[in-house]
């Protein structure tokens, strides 16, 4: 891999506030292939700042691919071209000299734009608050080894629990559906014996909350799982549908 700087043309969505009209603005910059994508934007922002221009606002925090705060649709794909990689872990070596890169925010009715590339994802928190938990207050839990769970079952639950709540699935979906996000939580908890008690109510309440927040319906495109940086399996949606149907048929009483 060459260490030479690459010349990059960026087309970045700029929008002053939630109620303003946005537009794509073009910037020319240079980047080292070992830089992360966000470091490339840091350098550009530093330039904009010294030129007296308004720097580009974007969400980010841990820069380790785990907090779920970074977003950005890069060349049409949430989190960019590399599979199983968040924007913050994407490096410029995934691009080449002379590339043009389009950077846009998540676009979904349930995720209103705050500024530039930042969106409001608090809808996800409200969906979790509607039932994405096991109701055990602190204290009184039995010895951890009193609950035996097979390794395979536990590993499968983990695959769903790995969701970082970034919202890339919603951004990828033509319907802006949150089925993968909700399905991941429902699948995680329904695979555990601890999660059985509230299983039905959880599925019904979380689906209702998801609809209230304005997320779209699932029409089986599968874009969500393809875009997911944590590779949450599409089966999450199948499990959610099954749990929801099961709860509806037998009533919400657990």
């Amino acid at each position: 891999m060459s260490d030479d700087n690459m010349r990059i043309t960026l087309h970045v969505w700029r929008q002053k506030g939630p109620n303003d009209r946005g537009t794509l603005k073009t910037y020319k910059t240079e980047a080292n292939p070992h830089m992360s994508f966000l470091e490339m934007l840091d350098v550009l922002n530093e330039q904009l700042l010294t030129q007296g221009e308004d720097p580009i606002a974007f969400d980010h925090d841990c820069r380790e691919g785990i907090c779920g705060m970074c977003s950005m649709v890069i060349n049409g794909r949430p989190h960019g071209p590399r599979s199983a990689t968040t924007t913050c872990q994407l490096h410029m070596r995934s691009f080449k000299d002379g590339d043009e890169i389009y950077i846009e925010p998540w676009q979904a009715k349930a995720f209103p734009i705050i500024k530039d590339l930042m969106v409001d994802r608090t809808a996800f928190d409200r969906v979790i608050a509607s039932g994405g938990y096991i109701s055990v207050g602190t204290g009184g839990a039995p010895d951890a080894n009193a609950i035996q769970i097979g390794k395979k079952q536990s590993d499968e639950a983990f695959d769903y629990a790995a969701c970082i709540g970034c919202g890339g699935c919603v951004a990828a979906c033509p319907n802006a559906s949150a089925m993968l996000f909700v399905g991941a939580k429902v699948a995680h908890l329904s695979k555990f014996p601890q999660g059985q008690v509230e299983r039905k109510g959880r599925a019904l309440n979380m689906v209702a909350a998801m609809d209230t927040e304005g997320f779209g319906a699932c029409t089986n495109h599968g874009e969500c799982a393809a875009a997911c940086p944590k590779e949450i399996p599409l089966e999450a949606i199948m499990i959610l549908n099954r749990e929801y149907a099961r709860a509806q048929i037998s009533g919400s009483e657990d």
Partner: protein
Amino acid sequence: MDLNARIPSGPISEKWDKHRFDLKLVNPANKRKFKVIVVGSGLAGASAAATLAELGYHIDCFCFQDSPRRAHSIAAQGGINAAKNYPNDGDSVYRLFYDTVKGGDYRAREANVYRLSQISNQIIDQCAAQGVPFAREYGGLLANRSFGGAQVSRTFYARGQTGQQLLLGAYSALERMIGAKRVTMHTRTEMLDLVLVNGHARGIVTRNLLTGKIESHSADAVVLATGGYGNVFYLSTNAMASNVTAAYRCYKRGAGFANPCFTQIHPTCIPVSGDYQSKLTLMSESLRNDGRVWVPKDKADCGKAPKDIPESARDYYLERKYPAFGNLVPRDVASRAAKEAVDSGRSVLGGSPAVYLDFQTAIERDGKAAIEDRYGNLFDMYERISGENPYGTPMRIYPAVHYTMGGLWVDYNLMSNVPGLHVLGEANFSDHGANRLGASALMQGLADGYFVIPYTIGNYLATAKQGSVNTDHPAFKEAEKAAEEKLKRLLSVGGDKSVDYFHRKLGVEIMWEHCGMARNKQGLEKALQMIPELRERFWKEIRVPGSSSELNLWLEKANRVADFLEFGEIMCTDALAREESAGGHFREEHQTPGGEAKRDDENFAYGAVWEYKGDNTAPALHKEHYTFEYVKLATRNYA
């Protein structure tokens, strides 16, 4: 300054039980009359907010991220310790306690650490009941692995994402209480000041980061769980926005800051790759279960690819120097050994300083699939960042700032010297001494939040009898005005340098250089001269765009860096005053002939607690002398 630690009397194993009985209770009907502010939503903050709400208190919880789930506890990889002794390998509450005090190089309070060890087991039970997907054996029971500084396997884990899974557990408990309207959550809201009324902590002043609005919130008590200050070094494994502001503003309101120089340098991080570097990424300590650390024996081999360096020409220096613990020595010891190897001119191929962490032996022994199962996500992360495949070539690693053991001083009840201000998790100083053992941060955060504060805050609320206060009180108006003026001042400088320019200079050129892995008198004195000079330049040359009445990421950052520029001075002052080496604090003047940290128990077996005495005035030193009744003070020996 009142530094009564309020350690209960009696044998150490009975103190917590006795204390819980002695603490005053608030009856269930009265709990709803009390309001508690919790600042921060990481492991300590989220677990405290959820548990206090379950008990019936009304909670206002604050975080500066867009969701409480983003707090940086989420990035902890390796695991959480507990004295369950499931593997039947000789562990006990007493051994976890002993290992933790020893690992901290005998600079922590015995009674707190013992309680932490006792509670550790309840944490695992609580988290398993919440549905945290801990790693399991084929028989369905929980799995354990080893971590540095221990000869037993007591670490519970969830692949390499233990912090994430534990935090999501606490977050789900918190969201349940938010859904039940027993917690009011304030996201994208940053604490800018603590408000005292009648000498008691009665509220905070915040800035709504979306609108810029400065607001006051009053309460009957304040719980601070705002994490550590590692970002004073600019490059660290902390999240980009982690900062010292909340804790520092409490210090300026009279809370003692204890042992600020005790910072943890984690031995296994991905090395710096260039000037544009914005943060460093940790590779979990758990990798040292199977990875072997080495550099070439001969400087002349440093330019060679690792595959061209034969086994006989490699120096597995940790195994050589510390045969009993090998690659699993505590973090401070492993970091210093890496520095020593690099300083001896044996940094490995690839530009920036680094040593190898090699999995070849483990892959040959256990097979690639087994290693992938244990560390797959960590290997993938390494590959994404470095572009190299660690299954085929050793990882390049180097120490980086990771955790801060220092923090606001607290008593046994986790209350600071300011009545009503309680401090949990990394933000306090109490449990890890001069060096934290791996997998103990998650344990402490959750112990404080789930199992300590719910008891101790009741005692405060039942006895403080401070009456009601609202935000019309002049103390709130004064704090709001001060916060607003500071922001205005930052915006009005109108210079031509960015915040990052100053942050990088402070962190990389001053703090890392002079108050990093090794410190000496001359360097610290130089740093104490450089920091005020840099601070002065900051206030003349900084450029912050935009206004304070809108979303302004650059203003947020400038405000945090302004506090780091003051706080760095306290760290260096503390490091200079501590004329000994202990854990992560390595004073070059104080070392054994073998180059190990040399403590001075006679003169420095105390917590150094600094009191604010005014801007541009030296802080005053107070001491909490540690008494060791159960652990025998000894030179740490991991050989």
